[in-house]
């Protein structure tokens, strides 16, 4: 029990690290994912191909390999950034592939008639996408994006092994200080539950407000 009370600041820093990774990587993943989804439905062949390759490769890459390649590989090109920036980059790119697929299937659920109506009103491709299709797709996309982001929060644990300060990594310090390992892990587990439950609650609210009644 005292593991937590004696090490508030350590746990706090770890939890903050995990939250930071989750938030920034989520933003990156959402932006990249939507762009890639746009590519994948674009009328331009080479963009479609690029989007498909991006998604296929990243979805089939083990995240540990991606972390390994990004955190130890990119510095070789003279890119010296803080470790957590690299971690955000790896997590964000990886998750963007899953976001892209969620958004794309959301776009595909919008009835064809909606687009036809928009075009017959004289809307351009950009207007159709931005004002008609995406707002509708957004609603069906909320639940899958939510679970993808929960998966992202859980995946952020890998960063701890690449010298990024985050929740799982705190066990090492606690172990050195001689605290009970079982209790340390229990509190780490609670920390992850807090993060994932928060995301899940957030998306619950989103879905209640904007979701499609099913």
């Amino acid at each position, binding site marked *: 029990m005292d593991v937590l009370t004696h090490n508030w600041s350590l746990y706090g820093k770890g939890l903050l690290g995990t939250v930071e990774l989750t938030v920034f990587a989520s933003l990156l993943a959402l932006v990249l994912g939507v762009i890639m989804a746009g590519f994948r439905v674009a009328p331009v062949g080479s963009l479609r191909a690029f989007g498909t390759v991006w998604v*296929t490769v990243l979805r089939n890459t083990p995240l540990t390999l991606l972390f390994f390649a990004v955190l*130890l590989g990119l*510095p*070789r090109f003279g890119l*010296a950034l803080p*470790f957590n920036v690299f971690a955000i980059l790896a997590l964000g790119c990886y998750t963007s592939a899953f976001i892209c697929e969620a958004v794309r299937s959301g776009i595909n659920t919008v009835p064809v008639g909606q687009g036809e109506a928009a075009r017959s009103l004289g809307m351009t491709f950009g207007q159709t996408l931005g004002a008609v299709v995406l707002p509708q797709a957004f609603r069906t996309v909320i639940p899958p994006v939510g679970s993808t982001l929960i998966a992202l929060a859980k995946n952020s644990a890998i960063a701890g092994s690449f*010298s990024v300060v985050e929740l799982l990594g705190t066990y*090492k310090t606690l172990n*050195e200080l001689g605290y009970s390992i079982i209790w340390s892990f229990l509190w780490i587990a609670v920390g992850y539950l807090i993060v994932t439950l928060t995301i899940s609650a957030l998306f619950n609210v989103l879905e209640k407000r904007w979701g499609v009644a099913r």
Partner: protein
Amino acid sequence: MKTFPRAAAALLLAALAVLAAACGKPGSPPAKGPRGDELPHYPVQTRFQLPDSPTWQKAKRRGHFAVGVKEDQPYLGERDPASGEYRGFDIEIAKMMSAALGFDPKGIAYKAIASANRETALQNGQIDYYVGTYTINDLRKKQVGFAGPYYRAGQSLLVRKDETDIKGPKDLAGKRVCSAAGSTPYQRIKADHPEAVLVAYDTYSICVDNLLTFQVDAVTTDDAILLGYAAKAPDEMKLVGKPFSEEPYGIGVPLKDPALRFAMDDALEAAEKNGNWKKAYDATLGLSGVPAPKPPRIDRYTVS
């Protein structure tokens, strides 16, 4: 999506072709830096008996020792990635002990164990003893037993060759310093130089890699380990400053096995007297250019 399997198969085939190029050269790529081919030979004490030691009894039934070592420390404990062979001073000490306790060193089952997991491995019997830059200290003496010390190292700093700012531990403020998680050097920097930014990995080889790619500014640990790395890439890295600690290296044994510990103390003393210790040093760590020091005095402590 029809191209999917073809793309996947092509990727696999291309990569496997690189790997399985049937005309692979035998063996492993040549190692850099000096390499001692003349390793000393240790006669096996076939009639040796140690009935008081449960670890020894277990090894007797198994027929060989299981020894924990490091795999990424040039000239101390290094594994050739390709052949799987272990080389280095620590490995020689491990062989010496095995021979003195009646087991052929050729039969040793080596196990690479990271610094953070040494106590665990000894406590749960994964290994019989551990030889791998294992510093003796009072905290660890509560968890494991130590035979020796067999070597005295000291903490030092490894930097890039062109580094001019860092001359000693006092210049570390705001610098990124890398060490192995859970190691003594890591804890010392944390306690004595809190202004340094600490970076931790499981192994030193990633630290050295980070140093060369400008992700960290210095690697700190025992001079013996750093010397090995510097000797492998003398144009890129150098050691700076004087050692700022004393690190007596011991052989880790299970806590509840004093019989094994004292038997190893005897064996070490004998090896230091008959010259095997110096021979082992010269064939390994000595290749980095530092002549053999006087071996430290064996500490036969008793647990109260």
